[in-house]
């Protein structure tokens, strides 16, 4: 069974890799105490998902280009939501003078 992993590049190679990097990004999302770390972990997860779309495009429908187009849209959307998150973070920093998430739920002095 493990022989397939050393003969040629199959779709399972890519999918296991992307699910591993997605889990690593999810671990970072759960563990970080500052907001920028959380945004970065979301970036990792989104880039992995986009890679998954291209993998399925190549291995299932290699004459179509739908997966690549969707991956392009995902890249654009990831950039957009990072911009929005960072604008909110700048406001948050102005009010609370810190970017740790434990100040997120505290009442303002």
């Amino acid at each position, binding site marked *: 069974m493990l022989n397939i992993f050393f003969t*040629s*590049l*199959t*779709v399972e190679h*890519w999918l*296991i*890799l992307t*699910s591993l*990097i*997605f*889990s*690593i*990004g999810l*671990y*970072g999302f*759960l*563990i*970080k*105490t*500052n907001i*920028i*770390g959380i*945004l*970065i*972990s979301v*970036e*990792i997860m989104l*880039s992995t998902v986009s*890679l998954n779309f*291209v*993998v399925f495009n*190549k*291995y*299932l429908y*290699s*004459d179509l*280009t*739908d997966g*690549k*187009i969707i*991956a*392009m*849209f995902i*890249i*654009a*959307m*990831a*950039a*957009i939501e*990072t*911009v*929005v998150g*960072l*604008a*909110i*973070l*700048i406001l948050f*920093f102005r009010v609370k003078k810190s*970017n*740790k998430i434990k100040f997120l739920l505290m009442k303002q002095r």
Partner: protein
Amino acid sequence: MFENLYTSIHLLLFYILAVFSLSFSIITVCASRTLKTALFLCATMVINACFYLLLGSEFLAIVQLLVYVSGVIVLLIFVIMLTDVQQSESETVSLSKKLFSILLTSLLFIFNTTGILCLISKNTGFYVDIITYNERQLSTLGFKILDLNQNGYILPFELISILLLVVLIGCLKISRK
């Protein structure tokens, strides 16, 4: 004979890049300083672009480099320098929280891997073909995006451009003094 060499070099490159990508992303989530996380995210995105090259989509690799590495990462580093200049050590997370997170994410990964290994090998629809001429052309991508039929992607394309404009104006208004 060259086909065998091609597949083995492909596989070797995949494993080398996978090792680099995993190590960079692990350093990204385990680093204590924010600038370290941003820089190793940059490295992860570069390796991701190499993955796109392995998959035969060169345009997406360049798009990834342009948008992520020189767009998002630069913006992240600007904001890090604006908000967290002295790179104060973030407070240590308790070990029980770390173990719980590792347990949850490894459960997700094991679930995914069992699904992949059991279900996909039963389906013989996955195959590797010689990359067709149609797929190599960049113009098919452009035609598909601007297609006015039902299968075209012109509506999301226009919506994303409007969304970019809205986000630009909105973020300027939000972060004004």
